Each structure stands twice: as C-alpha cells, then as structure tokens.
C-alpha cells in the first residue's frame, strides 16, 4: 500500500487519484444513506448528513489554523518564546519590511483603479459594436493564464540585453525603447519603478474581469432611462457622468473591492519575476519567504495576520455599500 503515499509512476498516480475519488464517494454515500434510513428524518439529522463533513473540514482547515496562526504571530521564530508585538514592530522597524508594506499599498491601490478604469473604458468602447464578443474575448483571455505563466510572458517582454554593437533586443519593451531612440532599460532591476512594471502584469490580468462585470452592468441599464436622458438633451460626456456611472455604481464597488482583495493575496507574479529582490517584495510574497524559506514562523505568521487585517476594511466597505444600495431600494 506504499504507493498510496508514494506514487512514482504515472499509472500509480492515476490509480491513487481514482482511489481518492472512490473513497470520497463511498464515505459521502454512507453518510447520506445513514441519515436517510429512518422513516421520518428530523431536520437536524438530515442537516448533519448534508452539512457535517463540510463543517468538520472548514473547522479543521480554516478556523483552527487561522487561530493558531494568530497565536503564533506573538511568538518567536520557533514558536517557543512569547515576544508580544515584536514581530509586528519589526515590520515597521526594518527598512526592507517597510518597503514591503509600501509596495503592497501601491499594488492594492493601483491595480483595482487601473484595471477598473481600463475595463470600463473598453466595455464602453466595444459596447454593441459588431465585433463585441471577439473584442471582449481578447481582453478576457489573460484571466485563464496562471500568474506564473503571466510572469514568464512579461519577463520575456521586459528581457534586457546590454546595448553593445550588434546585440539585438529580444524583449519587446526594450525594442520599443530603441525604436523610439532611447537606451535599453532594466525594467525589473531598477527601483522604485520595477514595482510598477510588476503591477502592470496584474492589471493586464484583472482588466478582463472588470470589463466583464461592468459591461453586464452597462447592458442592464434600462433603455427608457437612456432615452429619457437623451430627450432631455444630455450629451455623451454628461450621459456617462450622470447616467452610466450612478447606474453601475454597485457593480463598480464590487469590482474594485474584489480586485483589491485578490491583489493582496497574489504572490506568484512577484515570486516568478523578481523573487521579491530589488525592493519589489509584497506582503504575500514576504509571508512565503519568511515562513517557508527562512523558517521564521513568528514573522511569517505576523505577515499572514497583516494580510488578514488588510482584507477586513475592504470587505467591510463592500458590505456597507451593499447595505446602502439595498436601503435605497
């Protein structure tokens, strides 16, 4: 039975996978069969069968570890000695870690704002054009690409070759600079702008999401409303300012907050493109580095907690906005 934990060959791996699925199906069938046996199933018993496994898993894998992590963030790197708020203080005291916080703030503001702006602009531009679905698919497609894949794609674009004699650039960005008559530039090495060039990658991915949701919101604006405004002699710019924007405001809030939360958690782009060097690290990347490469459990846990704390106000804002729009109704 060793292969269950040590599958080597492709055949063994697929076998283990099938066993895992079969095991899961068997357990669930057993649980459901058990709660459906009695003639009149009381509500709570049925709920235990349908909900029990899920509650157990969430309790084990989300709630409990989250509490342990918060606890560990007040201990040293081996979780042995209580250190109070030292780990958190270190985040602000160390020059490098302060840079991490600044970078994270830049990410969390620039990505949602730029992605939503570009997504909205594009949604308006292609709305009801003959090529709408193709045009949208093109911008939407990066969403299917992994952050690692996107990191490689953009590393290739930013690739730098020193400007020596007949050496040609292979990265598009530097070739553009040369076509425009500039010197090639180390996009990923030179701070503080390298952080901005990493942010571009996330904007590239998230614009499709913003565009899709906002485009659906624009299409949901009732036609009579637009017609009425038009009869009132509203011009294009006013139409956008007084009709479109207020009408899609709830969708806009959701898009901004969803992208902001997603951006906070992304570490793949930074890790793939710079490894967090050259002053480009962000909290999510630093968490991985400290917890799993440096083995500093205390600082890693503190960074995870900071991530959690940063998410909370965004969610609260989102929920409050949703309440507001429900009250108006």
């Amino acid at each position: 039975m060793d292969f269950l934990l040590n599958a080597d060959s492709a055949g063994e791996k697929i076998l283990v996978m099938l066993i895992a699925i079969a095991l899961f199906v068997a357990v669930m069938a057993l649980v459901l069969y058990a709660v459906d046996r009695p003639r009149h199933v009381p509500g709570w018993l049925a709920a235990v069968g349908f909900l029990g496994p899920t509650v157990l898993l969430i309790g084990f894998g989300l709630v409990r570890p989250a509490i342990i992590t918060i606890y560990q963030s007040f201990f040293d790197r081996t979780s042995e000695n209580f250190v109070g708020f030292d780990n958190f203080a270190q985040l602000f005291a160390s020059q490098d870690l302060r840079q991490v916080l600044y970078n994270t703030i830049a990410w969390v503001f620039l990505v949602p704002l730029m992605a939503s702006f570009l997504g909205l602009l594009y949604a308006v531009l292609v709305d009801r054009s003959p090529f709408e679905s193709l045009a949208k698919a093109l911008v939407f497609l990066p969403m299917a690409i992994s952050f690692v894949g996107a990191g490689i794609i953009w590393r290739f674009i930013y690739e730098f070759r020193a400007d020596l004699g007949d050496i040609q650039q292979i990265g598009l960005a530097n070739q553009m600079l040369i076509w425009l008559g500039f010197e090639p530039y180390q996009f990923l090495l030179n701070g503080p702008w390298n952080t901005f060039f990493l942010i571009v990658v996330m904007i590239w991915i998230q614009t499709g999401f913003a565009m899709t949701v906002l485009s659906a919101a624009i299409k949901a604006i009732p036609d009579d409303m637009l017609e009425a405004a038009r009869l009132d002699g509203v011009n294009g710019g006013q139409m956008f300012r007084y009709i479109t924007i207020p009408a899609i405001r709830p969708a806009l809030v959701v898009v901004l907050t969803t992208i902001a939360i997603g951006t906070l958690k992304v570490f793949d782009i930074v890790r793939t493109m710079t490894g967090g060097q050259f002053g480009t690290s962000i909290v999510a990347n630093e968490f991985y580095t400290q917890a799993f490469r440096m083995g500093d459990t205390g600082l890693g846990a503190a960074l995870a907690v900071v991530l959690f704390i940063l998410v909370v106000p965004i969610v609260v804002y989102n929920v409050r906005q949703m309440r507001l729009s429900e009250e108006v109704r």
Partner: protein
Amino acid sequence: MSTTDSSRGKEAKESLEDKSVIAPAVLGDAPADERRDVKRPAEESRARKAKKRMSNPLASLLAVVIAVLWTIPTFSLFLSAFRPEQAIKTTGWWTFFTDPEVTVNNFNLVLYGNENFASFFINTIVITLPAVIIPITLALLAAYAFAWIDFPGSDWLFVAVFALQIVPIQVTLIPLLSDYVNWGLNGSFWPIWLSHSIFALPLAIFLLHNFMKDIPRSLIEAARVDGAGHVKIFFVVLLPLLTPAIAAFGVFQFLWVWNDLLVALVFGSDLQTAPLTVRLANLVGSRGTEWHLLTAGALIAIIVPMGVFIALQRFFVRGLLAGGVKG
C-alpha cells in the same frame, strides 16, 4: 433658463439613482446576451448610437490599441515557443515575420528532456480532478442543507461560512503544514487535495446557494408530498436543474487549482507531486535565460486552461456575475 436646466439634471440624476439599485439584481438573474434578443425602438436607437460611436475614429482606434496591447504578450510567447533556440536567444520574435523558422524541438526538449514536463503535466491532472470534484460535491450538499432543510442555527451557520470567504489562505498554511508533516502525509497528493477542497468550500457554498434558492419552492414541495426524502429530492429534483451552476463553479475551481502555485509549493513541491506551475517557477529560478524552454513550458501549462476557458466561457461569466455582483 439655467435654473430649469439644473433642476432637470438633478431630477434625472435622482431617478437614476433609485434605478441604479435595480441593476445588480437584474444582472445576476439573466445573462445580458439573453436580454438582447428583444428589440424595442429605444434599443434600436441605442444600437444606432453605438454604431455612431464606433464610427468615431478615435474611439475605434483606442479600442483596437487596447485589444492589441492585451493580445501581444500571449501571442509573442506562443510564437516564440515554436522558434529555434538560437533564434529566440539572439533575435526578437518580431523578426519571425521577415525570417520565419519553425520547430517543435522546444516541446520535445521540455516535455521529455531533463525538465520532464510530461510527468509534471500528469501531476497537475492528478491534483486537479479530485480538487474540483470533492469541493463541488460537498458544497452542493451544504448549499442544499442551507436552502431547503430546516434546522436550528441554520442562519447563524450560513453567515459564518459566508464570512469565512474573507480569510486569506495564507493564514492557514503554517499550522496545516506542520499537521501534515506530523501525520506523515507530506510528500503525497493527499494534503494538496484536502487543502484545495477546504479552501474552495466557502465560496462554492455561497455561489451554489445563490443558484439553489432560485429554484421554485413549489417543485420541492411537490416532491415532498410525493414522499421523497431529502436525499431523493437532492439527486432527482435539484441536481439536474443545477447543471449550469455546477459548470460555472466547476470552471472556476478548475482554473484556480490548475493555475495555483501557493498551495502546491507549500504542500507538494516534491518532484513526485509538483504540478506544472511549481516546475515552471523553479525553471525561471534556475534557468531564467533559457527562453526556448521557458516559452514552450509556459505554453504547455497555459494551453489546457485556456481551451477550457474558451469552451466554457458562458458558464464562467455567469458564475462571475452571480458570485461577485449579487453579493
């Protein structure tokens, strides 16, 4: 004159603001393209307006510029993957158009050479299938319980699960890893499957619950009168109706797991279990200038989710709108 104008503007604005709240409700219920079939006079004038806007050369130009900017990065990677090693490393991919050279050698190298991507491709598949099937099944059952079973504490528990969506998975990784190590599970696929399944549950339950409660109560009641228990109602009445919802979340979870780096890196970075993303990230670290390997490897990792995404885009969009906007 000016006063009437401004008051009119204000009126228009006010009437808009109370309509604005309808938008999200409308949004989730019917996909936008379904509503487009109904042609009303206003609609036609709107289409005319749109045509006028597209004929505005500046607007069209801007749209084309954005579309091109968004397409070129992926295109350049795909094109480069088919160029010979020497060509990729010494000339830009745009020179392909004046000097086309094509090879599949990069794929042979990266799939079956030292990098052995073929075996990591299998790892990705082995990780993905259970990590999609298990959470969907669990979430369907849980969503059913929240929507159609009366039990004490139901509301309270649902809010708790809903709230857990905001917990970043980073918060759970350190303790979970030490558990898996203590139990001797580390280095196998089990921790990866288990973790992915758990992390997916809150969002999955929330999304599927949204779809589930839209099903008319009368259907469930009718089945109950016929003597069907919860299990029978779930499998016979609800499951067939939920196929689009299952597809929507299925695409979501598939993309998430296939493209995931963090979970795989923490729980399964051994060669035996590492998926393509982990291998690709390592390749960047160790051989970051071997562009013939990187482009071909990245293409192999990207092509499957991209195909699935294009084929099932409709469902994905529906899931996106139901999950994000309905709140």
